[in-house]
């Protein structure tokens, strides 16, 4: 039991305390250990963890084939892919030592490994990512709803950023936006007062004011500033957005700090499955 439980907890406590308080210790020996060797060990163990993950994966795929579970032929494809990648990684370089020695081959042009990277790994991971463009589009269409005031804010901010950030946004005249504002004001007044006359009056007056102002100033595309999309976009992104993001960030920072402290003090032991 002590091996399975107490020792891991002790390791976390000691290593955590050393790395945390190592920031404050002005002593070369401890500094050197904290900054260099401790991090190196971490890197090495992280690498072993990756390999463990890969082996685990293969173990599962092989089990799937052995037990002929549903879709097992695809597992054969996965195993084949793994064997191919391992062969390119460890057994066949495809070039001789003058081009790349073992170790350098994973980053050198012309090796089998690089070929695999260019024509298999790259297109697959990039396409997986870009699939999201389609899902974003359909989410915009089918899930992005004005359910309440909060959702409206989210939506409006999102649209302003989306249009204002790209070149097309700077081609939208601020006067056009002003007309839209007047119309939305009309919708708002209508649902508030429920009186067609008042709505009509508000929209009429609004349109008249905007039109007269426009004719007097000669319709400059980016004036007044507060109705020009690229400018509004920049304001939203630099101020209200940052305020919101910062509140979240401070909260997250405190949360991570608290959890880390709990790890170090041995209060939180989830990493050993408790």
């Amino acid at each position: 039991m002590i091996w399975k439980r107490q020792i891991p907890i002790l390791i976390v406590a000691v290593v955590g305390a050393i790395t945390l308080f190592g920031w404050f210790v002005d002593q070369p020996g401890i500094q050197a250990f904290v900054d260099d060797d401790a991090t190196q060990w971490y890197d090495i163990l992280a690498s072993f963890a990756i390999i463990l993950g890969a082996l685990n994966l293969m173990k599962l795929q092989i089990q799937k084939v052995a037990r002929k579970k549903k879709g097992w032929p695809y597992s054969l494809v996965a195993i084949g892919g793994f064997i191919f990648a391992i062969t390119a990684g460890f057994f066949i370089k495809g070039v001789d030592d003058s081009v790349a020695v073992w170790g350098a081959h994973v980053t050198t042009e012309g090796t089998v490994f690089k070929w695999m990277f260019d024509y298999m790994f790259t297109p697959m991971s990039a396409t997986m990512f870009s699939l999201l463009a389609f899902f974003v589009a359909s989410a915009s269409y089918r899930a992005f709803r004005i359910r309440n005031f909060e959702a409206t804010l989210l939506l409006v901010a999102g649209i302003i950023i989306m249009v204002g950030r790209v070149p097309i946004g700077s081609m939208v005249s601020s006067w056009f936006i002003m007309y839209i504002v007047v119309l939305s004001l009309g919708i708002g007044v209508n649902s508030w007062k429920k009186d067609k006359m008042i709505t009509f009056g508000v929209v009429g007056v609004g349109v008249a004011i905007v039109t007269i102002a426009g004719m007097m100033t000669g319709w400059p595309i980016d004036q007044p500033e507060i109705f020009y999309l690229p400018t509004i976009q920049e304001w939203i992104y630099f101020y209200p957005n940052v305020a919101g993001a910062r509140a979240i960030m401070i909260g997250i920072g405190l949360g991570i700090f608290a959890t880390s402290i709990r790890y170090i003090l041995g209060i939180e032991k989830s990493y050993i499955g408790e």
Partner: protein
Amino acid sequence: MKDKQFWMVIGGLSLAFLIYWFLGHPMFNANRIVMFLAIIVIGATLLYNIRMAERGEEFYLRPIPGLKAVEEAVGRSTEMGKPVLYVPGIMDMDQVETVAGVIVLGHVSKMTARYETSLNVPVSRSIVMKAAREACRESYMLEGRPDMFHEDMVHYLTDDQFAYAAGVNGIMVREKPAACLYMGKFYAESLILAETGNSIGAIQIAGTASQAQIPFFVTACDYTLIGEEFFAASAYLSQKPELIGGVRGQDMVKAGVITVIVLATLFRFLYETWGIGFDVVKLLTVQ
């Protein structure tokens, strides 16, 4: 002053540190004293609240709407005779969100055991698999249904982000779960999952602290636990005193942070206008 032991230790340590400080604090990086004090003060606040909670002090936590929905979702799956899908994120146990996700999983698996609904938990890290399996096993034992627990309900897919998302997608379209719960650390795969869940008509409840993914979940899911709400939820669900105490402690620290922001603004104003006080900005710059 209820916790005498705590205050005595704190007092003793402070005294020891003061003596050490006035002895010329050998081997101490004095440039970082502000950070050092911050760590000690915040750490002590958290610890104090955790201890209070462990001693049986009752703390109030406001209700979180998204949490009630979890029970409804599991209930609905039972009615429909469909499984519940639970995704604990794609990162390892060293991420706090994953830990919170596994805690919430413990609670969800209690419900599925009670309702006799099947549960499917695909994971993307071998360590998470072990932890999640343990959490489920324990819940099924506690609910008196060890017969319903089988190890395969928590299964490993792959470490790779998109391969994992694709795998979970496959499970969704094949098994058509009635409830999809996403609780953990997510990156770009969040929308793939949420959108597919949407398309099969599942109730979706998400919880994450990954800022960039929250809007996707907010727009595509029925309920979303935003950032800290998610952490608070895991405390709420587990009813573990150390977690509830932690939430309470963080609330106190948050109140402290707000106070410091206000005071810092004030001091900065005074400093820049009349040169009164001290330079807050310099103080807060820790190198």
